[in-house]
C-alpha cells in the first residue's frame, strides 16, 4: 500500500504542473483535445521487482523476485474530445528469486524461476507537454498466465547435500495459481519515440497458498 501511495503522489506531482501548463498555453484552443489524440504502438521493456508476501496476520515473511518483461502494446483512442486511450498488449515476463544462507559450513540455497505471459489493459491519459514530450498516467488491470515455474533447493555440509527440483504449478503440494489477475497504476513519459515510466501492480488473487504478489516496475520502450 505504501508503494501505491508513493506512486499516486508521484503521478499527481508530475501531472499537476503539466496540466496547469497545458491549460495555460492552449486554454483558448482547448489544447487537450487538439493534436493529443494520436495513438501509438510499441515495444516495452521493464525491470520488475516483485515481492511475494505472506498474507498471514502480522507476518513479515516475504520473498523478493527480480525479473523483466518484454511486451508489445497498442493503443486506441476512446474519447472524441479527450486524449484518453486504451492501451493493451501482450508479452513475456520472467522473474527469479534466489536465497543463499551459510552458517558454520551449513549451506542452504533455494531458487524460484517463473516464466509467464503478461497481458495488460490500461486506460491512459495523454498530456502533451510540447511536440516531443508527453506524460501518460495510466491505470488498469493485467492478466498473467504462468507457463513455467520451478522451485529448487540444495542444502548440506561438505558434500553431504540434499536437493530437489519441482514445478510450482500443479504438483502435489505446489498448487501455485497459473492465472493471476491484478490491478496496476503508474505513469510513463514519451520523449520523441522513447518511452520511460514507473508502475506498481498487485495481484487480486493469491499466487501461492498464503502469499500474494506485488510488483514495482521501471519501464523503457520504443514507440512505432
Amino acid at each position, binding site marked *: 500500500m505504501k508503494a501505491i501511495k508513493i506512486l499516486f503522489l508521484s503521478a499527481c506531482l508530475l501531472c499537476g504542473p503539466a496540466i496547469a501548463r497545458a491549460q495555460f498555453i492552449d486554454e483558448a484552443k482547448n489544447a487537450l483535445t487538439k493534436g493529443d489524440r494520436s495513438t501509438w504502438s510499441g515495444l516495452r521493456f521493464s525491470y520488475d521487482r516483485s515481492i511475494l508476501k505472506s498474507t498471514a496476520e502480522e507476518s513479515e515473511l516475504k520473498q523478493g523476485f527480480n525479473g523483466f518483461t518484454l511486451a508489445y502494446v497498442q493503443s486506441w483512442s476512446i474519447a472524441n474530445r479527450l486524449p484518453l486511450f486504451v492501451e493493451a498488449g501482450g508479452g513475456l515476463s520472467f522473474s527469479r528469486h534466489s536465497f543463499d544462507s551459510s552458517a558454520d559450513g551449513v549451506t*542452504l540455497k533455494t531458487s524460484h524461476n517463473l516464466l509467464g505471459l503478461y497481458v495488460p489493459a490500461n486506460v491512459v491519459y495523454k498530456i502533451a507537454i510540447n511536440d516531443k514530450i508527453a506524460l501518460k498516467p495510466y491505470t488498469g488491470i493485467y492478466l498473467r498466465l504462468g507457463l513455467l515455474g520451478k522451485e529448487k533447493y540444495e542444502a548440506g555440509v561438505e558434500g553431504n547435500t*540434499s536437493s530437489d527440483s519441482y514445478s510450482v504449478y500443479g504438483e502435489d503440494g505446489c*498448487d501455485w495459481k497459473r492465472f493471476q489477475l491484478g490491478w496496476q497504476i503508474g505513469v510513463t513519459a514519451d520523449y520523441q519515440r522513447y518511452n520511460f515510466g514507473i508502475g506498481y501492480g498487485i495481484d487480486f488473487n493469491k499466487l501461492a497458498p498464503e502469499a500474494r504478489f506485488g510488483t514495482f516496475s521501471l519501464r523503457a520502450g520504443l514507440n512505432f
Partner: protein
Amino acid sequence: MDFKLKKCVFVCAAGLLAAALPSCSNEDEESGGTISYGKLASEVPPVANAGIQFPVTGIYHGYSSGFGNSSLGQAYTYRDGRMTGGYERLNDEVIEITSNPLTVRISRKTSYVEEVEEYKNIKVNSDGFITSCECEYHEIDEDEDYMEHCTYTLAYDSEGHRILEKYHLTDVDGYWENGTTTYTWEDGNLIKTEWVWESIDDEDEEGVDWRYTEEMTYDEDETRYPNTGVWHFYDLGAVGNDSFYDAFLYAGLLGRSTKNIPLTFKENQYFDEDYYVYTTTGVNYNQDGSIESIHSIYDRTSSWGGNSTGASSHVYFRYGQEWDEDWTSFMSQRLTKSLDNGVRKPRKTLSPRKRLQERMAQRMANLK
C-alpha cells in the same frame, strides 16, 4: 535545446537504473533471513520416515531411580503410524494435529486466559520433514489479544538430519528475535548444536546477542546404546533448541534422531556462563529392542545458584499406551487442580530464548 533535453532524458533513465540496482538486494533479510520453500504438507508423515522404530506414547522423568519416582512429561497418540496429537505437561498444553493442509495447534485454556499457537503454511521436503512454516501465537484474556508471529526455515542433509534452523519472531509490542541453529553430525550422530540469536531486549531495547551450545560424545563401539528414535536423553528437554515442541520431533517432522545414545552431553549458555554436563550411566532396552530408560548423572554450574556434582537423572519411555483421546476432559481435570492452587502460569511464548529460560527455571524448581 534538443541536446540538453536529450541529455536530461538519458540522465533520468540512468537515475531509474541506479534506483533499480539497490532494490536487487536480498529482500529476505527483512524477514530475519528466513524463507518459505518446500511443498505444502497435507498431513504428518509416517514416523518411520524419521527412523522412529517405536512410536513413543509417554516420556517420564525423575531425579530418583525407578519408574515410580518419575512423572509424565509428554504424551502422544498415533494412528496408522502417524502422530495425531499429544500433551505437554510443562504448560498443560494440548497438541492437535489436523490434515489438508497440515496444521499443528497447541492450546492451553484456563478461566483466566486462552493461549493458542498454530503452526501453518507448513512446507516439507520429500521425506515429510519441515522446510519452512509460520506460527501465530495468541494470548487472549479479558483485557487484550496479545500476538506473536514466527517464521521458520530448516534444512537437512542427504541422510535426513536437521542441519540448519532459522527463525524470525515478532510481537505486537515491537519485540523481535532472530536465531540460527546449526547441527553438526558425524557418522549418523549429532555431535554439536550451536544456537546464536539476537533480539531486542525487553528493557533497554538494544540488540543483545546470545549463544547456546550442546556437545555430545559417543562410544567408539557403534553397537553400544543404539537409538531407536528418541530425542530425550537426560531430562524432559529434547536435544536441540526450543523452537519447536518436542511433539514435532516424535511426529517425524524434524528429521532423524541420533544413531546412538550419547555417552556425554554438555549444555552451555555463554551469556549466563551456565552449563550442565551429563554422563550416561546406562540405557535399558525392552525385549523388542525399544528403549525403556536412560540413566545419567550430571554436574551443574549455574548462575541461578545451586551448583551440584554427581546428581542423577532418569528418563523413561512408554509405548503403545492407550491414552484417552478426550484431551479436553483430561486437561479439565488438571486445570481444576491448577486453579485450586491459585496458580496462574506466566504467559507462554514462541520465543525460543524465553522458552530456554523457562526450561532452566523449571529445572531449578524441580530440584528444590
